[in-house]
């Protein structure tokens, strides 16, 4: 799996992401500067990592979404290429119009860093095939603006088309208000686009890929991507 990790000024989880990709695929990801106008040849996966691109000033992800490299990402996605946005990356993909909706301030208005549980809603996608449908995984979140919102119609479509892949839940898998750490509509933690090749999610699977971190539940996402690409090849 040849992956490209985008680097915008203010992005800060690009190293975490590159490490996870390396562990999963054995390949060093290419780090791609925001001012580039093309992606490295043969890229299989584009990752928009977490952080505070442009300080998250104005709206989170807004300025980065308009960077030159994003045109290349749009073209890559239109060609069916796989795009993964995590945290700030999710926000950037929404602002760039690659995913619907927006990420608002957490309902409790505070930045929150802790492990959360997510239910994997289906396992038949490139981004979830490393898990079983209904599996509960534990990964950390670290964000102040992860409260997913979209209009009723969009939410209906997302649900109807099975595009909500990850949902906040209790350790037992119950989707309810207390487990919905940021107040997201329908407890949404991660969604895909219509075509299924662009995923945005708030939690950080890349921080739970090593035993010594006490949990490796994030591995499935990356392992699944590797498997998906091998299968396709």
């Amino acid at each position, binding site marked *: 799996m040849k992956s490209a990790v985008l680097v915008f000024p203010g992005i800060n989880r690009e190293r975490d992401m590159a490490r996870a990709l390396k562990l999963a695929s054995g390949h060093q990801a290419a780090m791609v500067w925001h001012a580039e106008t093309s992606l490295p040849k043969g890229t299989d996966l584009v990752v928009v990592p977490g952080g505070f691109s442009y300080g998250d000033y104005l*709206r989170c992800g807004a300025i980065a979404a308009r960077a030159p490299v994003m045109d290349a990402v749009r073209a890559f996605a239109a060609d069916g290429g796989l795009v993964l946005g995590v945290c700030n990356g999710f926000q950037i993909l929404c602002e760039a119009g690659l995913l619907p909706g*927006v990420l608002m*301030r957490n309902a409790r208005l505070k930045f929150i860093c802790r492990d959360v549980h997510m239910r994997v809603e289906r396992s038949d996608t490139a981004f979830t095939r490393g898990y079983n449908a209904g599996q509960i995984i534990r990964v950390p979140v670290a964000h102040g603006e992860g409260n997913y919102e979209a209009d009723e119609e969009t939410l209906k479509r997302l649900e109807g088309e099975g595009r909500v892949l990850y949902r906040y839940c209790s350790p037992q898998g119950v989707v309810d208000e207390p487990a919905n750490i940021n107040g997201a509509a329908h407890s949404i933690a991660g969604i895909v686009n219509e075509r299924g090749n662009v995923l945005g999610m708030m939690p950080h699977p890349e921080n739970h890929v090593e035993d010594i971190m006490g949990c490796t539940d994030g591995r499935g996402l990356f392992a699944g991507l590797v498997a998906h690409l091998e299968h396709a090849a």
Partner: protein
Amino acid sequence: MKARVTVTLKSGILDPQGKAIEGALKSLGVDGVASVRQGKVFDIELSGSDKAKAEAALKDAADKLLANTVIENYRVEVLS
């Protein structure tokens, strides 16, 4: 030239911050607050002196960046 762009949330879009402020004002005992919605203003200095041109540039700025038109409305005023 001085100008101001005001960006507000479309009605119907949830405003967690506004809601929290509403609650906080109530608990601070500020009287009679029924609802709060938060928006942004941008005070912009422009070079040049053509008002119409300035307005067009600001609209451009708002469309391209200052507002997320999926959820926000904006208003442009050239002040002087």
